[in-house]
């Protein structure tokens, strides 16, 4: 195993409501949703019509550009509704669950040996979207050949699902997933140096140990500290959930999207894990929020970069976490000038919460100020970003739409999620993730 990489910069956001390490429920909803917006870089083409029967693993939509990339159904049943928005934009495909889990058999009795076979199997089973390409964070191009494939075996995001708890019993599947992907490119797995990880046993991959605060667990930050991506280079990334799913495909021959989902956050009643499938409706976990739904923001993912989906929403395809936080619409009299705001967390020394590092806070969605132009300088943001880039310069280059500058300041290395902590600490309350996302969109448009 290689040397431990210690990342000194970063910030663990002390938010209350960590999920207890137990499964409290199995969520088996009547309807699940597949939302094209979860798949960045995908232009959806529908392959089903309302009323069509589907099985676990049968295709629901495909990409218009790379028609081999399929999104497949995680449940068996029939297509209930195709939800469209303005200009007939496809918003979601709702599938009625018959609770029978009839699965398409991809006939995998032995693990495929070469890259072409593996790619073909992943594409046809709907497992391909697990592979995300960097730069840009889009679904990997099946025709390209990446330099390497990276996976992070721990998550440092606020209240993130515990990788050891979720996947320790799936190590054999993850190993099978690693073996399969290793036929395409060398696989790198990053481990948490602070615990004796169950994934330390993985073979056929290069392991790296990381120690540090969030975003040390972000695969982008890890890549940047292992081998930064430069122009004309692509790498792929995959989550542990994805590796396990690919492993199950390889060993069992079926598409299985089941996962443990952490239901957490300050508003979650008895925060814990549920056994679930992607796309389950929030209503099916109503036991976790009771009658308070109107004051709650439902976040599919973590509070830094998850999507707000609303109480009628559905879990994202990639998510293994639902965070329930309070909408912070309350006003605080003279909040900004009070010497001590005991209930508020700030990493800035203008407040005193940094003197109490053990405390967890009941955070809400209040912006805590008004939006302003950037006033603090780059160092203010760089102190929470363990990457060798200048975050403010990159954000400003994205704002200006200056591709040359964006390249120089490292747009290839980052995704919005990597700069989420910078956004959190920003006293000017700018949406830095949105700026980066727009910059990436511009790059995609220009490169196309």
């Amino acid at each position: 195993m290689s040397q431990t990489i210690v990342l000194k910069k970063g910030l663990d956001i002390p938010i209350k409501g960590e999920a207890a390490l137990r499964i409290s429920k199995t969520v088996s909803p009547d309807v699940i949703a597949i939302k094209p917006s979860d798949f960045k870089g995908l232009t959806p083409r529908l392959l089903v019509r309302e009323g069509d029967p589907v099985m676990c693993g049968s295709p629901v939509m495909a990409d218009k550009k790379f028609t081999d990339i399929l999104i497949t159904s995680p449940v068996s049943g029939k297509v209930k509704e195709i939800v469209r928005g303005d200009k007939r934009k496809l918003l979601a495909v709702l599938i009625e669950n018959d609770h029978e889990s009839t699965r398409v058999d991809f006939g995998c009795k032995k693990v495929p040996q070469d890259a072409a076979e593996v790619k073909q199997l992943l594409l046809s089973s709907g497992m391909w979207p697990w592979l995300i390409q960097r730069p840009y964070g889009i679904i990997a191009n099946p025709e390209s050949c990446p330099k390497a494939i990276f996976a992070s075996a721990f998550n440092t995001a606020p209240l993130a699902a515990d990788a050891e708890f979720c996947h320790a019993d799936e190590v054999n599947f993850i190993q099978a997933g690693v073996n399969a992907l290793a036929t395409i490119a060398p696989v790198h797995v990053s481990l948490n140096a602070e615990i004796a990880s169950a994934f330390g046993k993985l073979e056929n991959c290069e392991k790296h140990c990381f120690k540090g605060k969030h975003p040390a667990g972000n695969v982008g930050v890890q890549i940047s500290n292992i081998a930064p991506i430069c122009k004309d280079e692509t790498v792929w990334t995959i989550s542990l959930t994805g590796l396990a799913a690919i492993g199950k495909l390889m060993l069992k021959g079926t598409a299985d999207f089941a996962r443990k989902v952490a239901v957490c956050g300050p508003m979650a009643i008895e925060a814990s894990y549920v056994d679930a499938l992607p796309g389950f409706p929030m209503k099916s976990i109503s036991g976790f929020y009771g009658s308070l739904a109107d004051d709650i923001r439902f976040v599919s993912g973590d509070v830094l970069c998850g999507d707000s989906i609303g109480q009628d929403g559905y879990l994202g395809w990639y998510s293994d976490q639902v965070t329930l936080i309070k909408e912070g619409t309350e006003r605080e009299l003279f909040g900004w000038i009070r010497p001590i705001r005991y209930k508020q967390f700030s990493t800035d020394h203008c407040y005193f919460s940094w003197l109490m590092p053990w405390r967890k806070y009941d955070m809400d969605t209040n912006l805590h100020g008004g939006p302003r132009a950037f006033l603090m300088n780059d160092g203010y943001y760089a102190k929470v970003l363990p990457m060798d880039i200048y975050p403010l310069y990159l954000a400003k280059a994205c704002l200006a739409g200056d591709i040359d500058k964006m390249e120089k300041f490292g747009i290839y290395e980052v995704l919005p999620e990597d700069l989420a902590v910078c956004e959190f600490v920003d006293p000017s309350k700018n949406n830095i993730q949105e700026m980066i996302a727009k910059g990436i969109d511009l790059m995609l448009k220009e490169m196309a």
Partner: protein
Amino acid sequence: MNKIFEKGGKLWWLHSTADAFDTFLAVPGTVTKKGSHVRDAVDLKRIIIIALIAAIPAALFGMWNVGYQHGLAIGDNRINILGNFWFGFLRVLPLYVVSYLVGLTIEFGTAQIRGEEVNEGFLMTGFLIPLIVPVDTPLWMLAIAVAFATIFGKEVFGGTGMNIWNPALLTRAFLFFSYPNSMSGSSTWIHFKAGEQAIDGFTGATPLALDGAAQYSTSFWSEFLGTIPGSVGETSTLCILLGAFILIWTGVASWKIMAGSVIGALAVGFLGDLAGVSAIPCWEQLVLGGFAFGTVFMATDPVTSAQTECGKWIYGFIVGALCITVRLFNPGYAEGMMLAILLGNTFAPLIDHCVTSTHISRKAKKIKVA
């Protein structure tokens, strides 16, 4: 906020102003729309109020010193701390009223025109301006200078956060070059009531103008404590150090810039000592004139200083070194801090450009090797 201030309401044209007072009273109940769903409790109002608090000791001492210097000048040597403070307070208060009135009016007006929220930046600028001008500055001059600095130094660039030069220092530079008679010489720093005049042998010149020589009782300690003539807030190095402590403790201002500036000043001052062009030891330069105030409160302005960590050292060094260079080698100007910082501000983007370019090429090499 009341509906009449909302779009379409009767008082829509006042919405920025209403919003400013509203958010001044209470943290707004706005929630995050995009990106991170939770945010840090700190905002610019907080950061700026901390910077302002850090400058309060210097301001209070400055007010007292105005009274004290007046007493010395008219030969009144009685100890009267409160009396001196009150005398100074009444002289400085009009400067504050004019500074805030003119600056905030422009700030509110431009925010309204742009349809944005009022930025807090001028709270700090307006607080600093009276501290860096002579106490007897005519109020109309100050009003013109503040208006110039706010409009042409800040608003034309897009407001707080976009400006190139420190607006408070631009105010002073405007006064300095437009009305030199009111800004220098030995009679500007002491306030006299009508009919009063200085006793024989008293000079109101700053120790710097006298080049440290022959000044009555100007020891290092009185310079350090600040019982010397000068701009209102700049004299007491002790109070400024107190402010520096608050700024560094809270992280509002960069200690790297301050350290760089002190190193730069000592370096040039030391060379001056070696070459024999300086009449005073290099360390005494640090407690004279506006050096300390400029280093702690002006050079560290996060908008106009260097952005990069490495750049901050270089920027600080340049400011300190330039200040002492002007002091030692330019017989026309007794003090160089104002010009040094403004020049430093001008070069800050260039410094950052060099630092980031070096970083980019170093990184490119590293990737190539790997």
